[in-house]
């Protein structure tokens, strides 16, 4: 936990410094007749972020915070595997939405999550894998008129568009 606390503070400090540098692309000082420049607000705030992350770091190194005293691991191995699996599945699902579209990605995600992580029966898994995309289609595409990404499956939807839109 202590190492995680220190590492997080360092990463956040670097990120804050990057934000300061990035904000400085716009004027950070006073622009005559326009008030503070466009970069001023984010610049000074990220300066504050840098200061507070350094403050966190100092406290962590001195062992003042509860996390820096804790000897518990940041992740125990069991939950690390589980969380990594879930995050991995989400990443793959979102990435595949670009390619096989929402209606390809959702069923695959359900099959992975319910069958492999949850160990549910095929009947339960498949019913969720089929019903969720259908509900999503009718709610978002028909009622809300929001076109979700479909990737290569786009042509399959032409007949549906003809019927509902």
């Amino acid at each position: 936990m202590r190492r995680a606390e220190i590492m997080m503070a360092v990463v956040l400090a670097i990120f804050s410094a990057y934000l300061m540098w990035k904000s400085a692309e716009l004027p950070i000082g006073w622009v005559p007749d326009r008030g503070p420049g466009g970069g001023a607000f984010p610049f000074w705030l990220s300066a504050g972020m840098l200061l507070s992350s350094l403050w966190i770091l100092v406290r962590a190194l001195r062992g003042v915070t509860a996390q820096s005293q804790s000897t518990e691991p940041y992740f125990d191995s069991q939950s690390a595997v589980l969380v990594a699996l879930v995050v991995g599945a989400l990443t793959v699902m979102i990435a595949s939405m670009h390619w096989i579209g929402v209606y390809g990605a959702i069923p695959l995600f359900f099959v992975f999550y319910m069958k492999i992580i949850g160990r549910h029966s095929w009947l339960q898994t498949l019913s969720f894998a089929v019903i969720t995309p259908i509900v999503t289609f009718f709610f978002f595409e028909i009622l809300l008129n929001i076109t979700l990404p479909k990737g290569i499956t786009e042509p399959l939807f032409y007949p549906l568009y003809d019927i509902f839109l």
Partner: protein
Amino acid sequence: MDIITHLLDGFVVALQPMNLFLVIIGCAVGLFIGAMPGLGSVNGVAILLPVTFIVPPTSAIIFLCAIYYGAMYGGAISSIMLGIPGASTAVATTFDGRPMAVQGKADKALVAAAVASFFGGTISVILFTAFAPPLAHVALVFGSAEEFALMMLAFGTFVGLGGDDIPKTIFSILIGLVLSAVGLDIISGAPRLIFGDISGFYHGINFLVLAIGIYGIGEILWTIESSRGEVQVSQAVVSVQRILAALKEMGKCIKTMIMGSLVGYFVGLLPAAGATPGSIMAYGFAKTMSRNPKSFGEGNIQGVAAPESANNAASTGSMLPMLTLGIPGSPTTAILLGGMVIWGLEPGPRLFVDQTEFVWGLIASLYVANLFALLLNVAFIPVFIWVLKLPFTILAPVIFILCVVGGYAPTQDMHDVWLMLIFGVVGYLMRKLDYPMAPMVLAIVLGPLAESSLRQSLLLSGGSMMVFVERPISGPIIGVAMLLFLLPVFKALKRRRDAGKASEG
């Protein structure tokens, strides 16, 4: 009486068939979300906000507020049946609710929670109706300096009263504000903080992307990790007779419920405090006031009534600053406020003048929502108990899909879905190290307003910071805000002095 006529007009709006239908659905969904361990009002409102684009703004906010309310009722269900708070706001309900369930009095505890919630909700809505119009009237004269001062006050409450690690709280506020600055600069129109020249950053970071990331994806990851073990659902014997008997017993709790409602309401007004500390404080007060404090923690019905009335009252309390001042009183109301901007309404005191139908429709719907939440809660106790037995491996993927599609809907840009995933995962990792998340969400919602009011004030004053201190209203507000920011310093000094004394003696 002006207020009464407005309120009656509001009821006309709230009782329109569609709005009434939305209140009922909202309460049911809220109860369901609240009952699920780990998910509370803020998660429900964040995940379901994109769904409300289908209806007009008044109906949308009525629906979301019904979810807010329902979740406050529902939180008690898993606190009592599982001994795990259904939402952080129901933590104090476990103290006596769980022992009551273990003793076979689960039905009594559930009824007490529902009635106390109704009581707290109703008292606080009446207070709200009385206080909101005058406050909005006062706030009408506020200029940009006052607006900025109020936001400082909101952030100050997190530092001074939030109770989390101070530098981590400050970091959370600041990163939220910086994220809100991404996009095109409002005054010069120049692109700003466009990372790696990715086009998706030009439209800025929608607050919903952060809110769904943290309260949807991050929260589920958190729940997956913390709820791995098997949980034991208590048995509840539910029959009409037993419910009626339990209702009769609630007479004893009236004093506790009034106390809980008042404590909850006033604590709820503060952005950093809200329903969780409000309900814990109410529990503490009930215990001190009681003639038999030892019975608390062993299944005293007063110990269920106090926090449950307080957390509902707090949820109404947090809406008062949101509607009248445009400063949200809780993370949930921050998301509602962001929603109002998406719907094209300008939050702040002008709402009471320009959007009377919206404001009063909402207020009236709170009365209606309370009633339905109570009825649904008592009528469907068995259903909610069944909900608790649903395996999380079914609910989690459904919620993930809702998050992904809901994150895509507002801007229709895959870029935002990726950002949401990143925020969710990073937010979860930070939360494990006790970085508070609520200030960040509040900050990203208030950020654009904070920046424009700061720059406007400075432009008018010619760059002098004194403008915030000199004006008659903003001066005292800034003063209080500064005190709150410095409160931890005073506390630390006092602790050091006490420690010094102790070592001398």
